[in-house]
């Protein structure tokens, strides 16, 4: 018997018990809709995280002065004094994968303007820091390289600082004090919001690193180097040469621990993606349990249907239907049921995730992969759970089946 015929037969058999077919499909519909909605919510969250990571700057290689062991006492990140601006220049000079780099010298200080004061992080760096971090200026301008060389008292501030210190005033051109030292505000940065670990990135003041080293912290080393590689792949590839270069420059003997850390954005991104991926899989797994339940519903109804139609099966066999004809007939019926449920479920899932992103303003990302998977999965559910009833039908003895009341 050809397939189109079997398919038409299946549709007709399902149409005969409309209510029953609809209820059976409902299991699959809910399952598939849940999978689609959940996965698109998960993917939306993942997309958000990715955007966040990208906002931190692309291709970034992050080098931190590490926990060396000066005199046997371990100190935390940025605690050792061996990472210098010369290290940064050496990296730029000798590792072609790195195209730019900016130092970071951090210090938490109380800052004052008029009768307002605010505690924030003073970040000493160079103007290209903002390029590396993909960060643009909202108003005013960034201090210049000459001002870095001169250790000038200039700074740019984040929007949180601007809001808290200057209230409604325009900070550009105004002078604030860090401790007792006056700094001219050259510009205000674009708001960048929270980073992926929830820190407010706009709560910071950026000044030339020379100024921070000499006038605020009184140190000669740097805590961090923010380097930018020529591509995301290069950022990972640069880790090894940077490590060996710095070990050499810091005269660390083979077998001794590094006194610095090298991290890339892609490592962070990978980790974040993995976490999100696990979440999505978990939610998807829960949703597919309902698909399973839907499948069992199909099996149940198909078994009832085989029993009800025992005589019909007997007649079909008597006039020449082979076992595989009968099996195919019931299998196609089960698959039609589950695939129709799947199609309706996909539709509901799409509508559902659209509603969620509209009313809960939660970003959803409908993935084609999820839709295709759901469609295939619902088909597979039909085959898996339809197989046993179909087999049962095919195995009927025609004589018994014809006698069945």
């Amino acid at each position, binding site marked *: 018997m050809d397939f189109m015929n079997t398919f038409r037969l299946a549709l007709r058999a399902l149409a005969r018990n409309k209510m029953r077919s609809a209820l059976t499909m409902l299991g699959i519909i809910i399952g598939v809709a849940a999978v689609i909605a959940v996965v698109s919510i998960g993917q939306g969250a993942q997309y958000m995280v990715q955007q966040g990571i990208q906002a931190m700057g692309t291709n970034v290689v992050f080098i931190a002065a590490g926990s060396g062991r000066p005199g046997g006492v371990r100190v935390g990140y940025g605690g050792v004094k061996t990472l210098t601006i010369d290290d940064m220049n050496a990296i730029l000079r000798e590792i072609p994968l790195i195209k730019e780099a900016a130092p970071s010298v951090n210090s938490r200080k109380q800052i004052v303007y008029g009768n307002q004061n605010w505690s924030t992080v003073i970040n000493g760096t160079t103007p290209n820091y903002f390029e590396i971090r993909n960060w643009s200026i909202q108003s005013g301008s960034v201090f210049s390289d000459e001002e870095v060389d001169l250790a000038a008292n200039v700074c740019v501030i984040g929007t949180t600082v601007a809001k808290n210190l200057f209230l409604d005033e325009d900070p550009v051109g105004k002078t604030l004090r860090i401790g007792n030292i006056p700094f001219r505000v050259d510009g205000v940065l674009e708001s960048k919001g929270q980073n992926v670990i929830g820190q407010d990135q706009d709560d910071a003041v950026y000044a030339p690193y020379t100024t921070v080293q000499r006038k605020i912290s009184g140190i000669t080393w740097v805590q961090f180097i923010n380097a930018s590689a020529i591509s995301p792949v290069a950022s990972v590839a640069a880790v090894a040469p940077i490590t060996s270069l710095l070990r050499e420059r810091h005269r660390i003997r083979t077998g001794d621990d590094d006194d610095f850390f090298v991290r890339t954005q892609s490592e962070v991104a990978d980790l974040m993606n993995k976490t999100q991926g696990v979440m999505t899989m978990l939610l998807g797994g829960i949703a597919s349990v309902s698909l399973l339940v839907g499948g069992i519903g199909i099996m149940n109804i198909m078994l009832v249907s085989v029993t009800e139609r025992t005589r019909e099966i*007997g007649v*079909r066999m*008597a*006039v*020449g239907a*082979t076992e595989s004809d009968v099996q195919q007939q019931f299998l196609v019926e089960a698959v039609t049921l589950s695939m129709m449920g799947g199609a309706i479920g996909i539709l509901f899932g799409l509508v559902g995730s659209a509603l969620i992103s509209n009313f809960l303003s939660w970003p959803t990302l409908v993935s084609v992969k999820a839709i295709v998977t759901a469609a295939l999965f619902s088909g597979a559910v039909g085959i898996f759970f339809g197989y046993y009833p179909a087999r049962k039908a095919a195995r009927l003895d025609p004589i018994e089946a014809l006698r069945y009341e």
Partner: protein
Amino acid sequence: MAEQTIPVTEPAQTVAQGKPLIRLENVHKIYDLGEIQVQALRGVSLEVREGEFVAVMGPSGSGKSTVMNILGCLDRPTKGRYFLDGVDVSGMSKNELARIRNRKLGFVFQQFNLLSRTSALENVELPTVYAGISPEERAKRAMEALTRVGLAERAGHHPSQLSGGQQQRVAIARALVNRPAILLADEPTGNLDSRTSVEIMQIFQTLNEEQGLTIVIVTHEQDIAQYAKRALEFRDGKLRRDNIVRERLVARDVLKTLPTAEEQAAEDAEDNAREERHGHGDAEK
């Protein structure tokens, strides 16, 4: 009661001509019911030639249904051989048997066994679907078969819209649609009134005589067996009698003596009226 039911004299084999279509050789059928084994057939040998019209008779438990199932390739003999149209089918697989049923055999059942909520035409088409015939050819052949049983104008009706006799005629059309070598009918008139039964027998006689179709029917009704040409009688799993039917009935003639449906209705009405007139006394005639 079956002892002298069939008026016969000579053995059948001598009369039948044509090539042998069915040959059973010492067929046994044993049903294994776990604790006990039931010997349904104990060595049946039998030959049916092309163009015969055979009635299979016997009380329940005689093995006539079993023999019918084996002849219909719905069941396989435990022992012995069955040649159908020259081919040994006793050792065939289920799939091969399904194919044989589809191509060589036509079935008519007591319960009609039509698919409900399916038109007469589609019911008749059913065997052609499994024969892999194209949809156009299927409809054409089904229509032809319906025409042969005089139901062409009812092609679109569902079984529930047809009378018992009409349903059985649809079933006969279904049995004919793949142009089988043999028509097998199991108590084909068991669910029908006398007149309709004779009408069905008329169709069988026409098919047998005018088109040379070989027919085997199972019946427990003596007068139905009387329309066949040859009668087999089974008892205790064995073929006990195999005789030519003498004083054969011709359905066409019998029908003339029976009241038509309208006349029957008129008669019933008259009976009722008479009963009314005589009060509700005894309904005896």
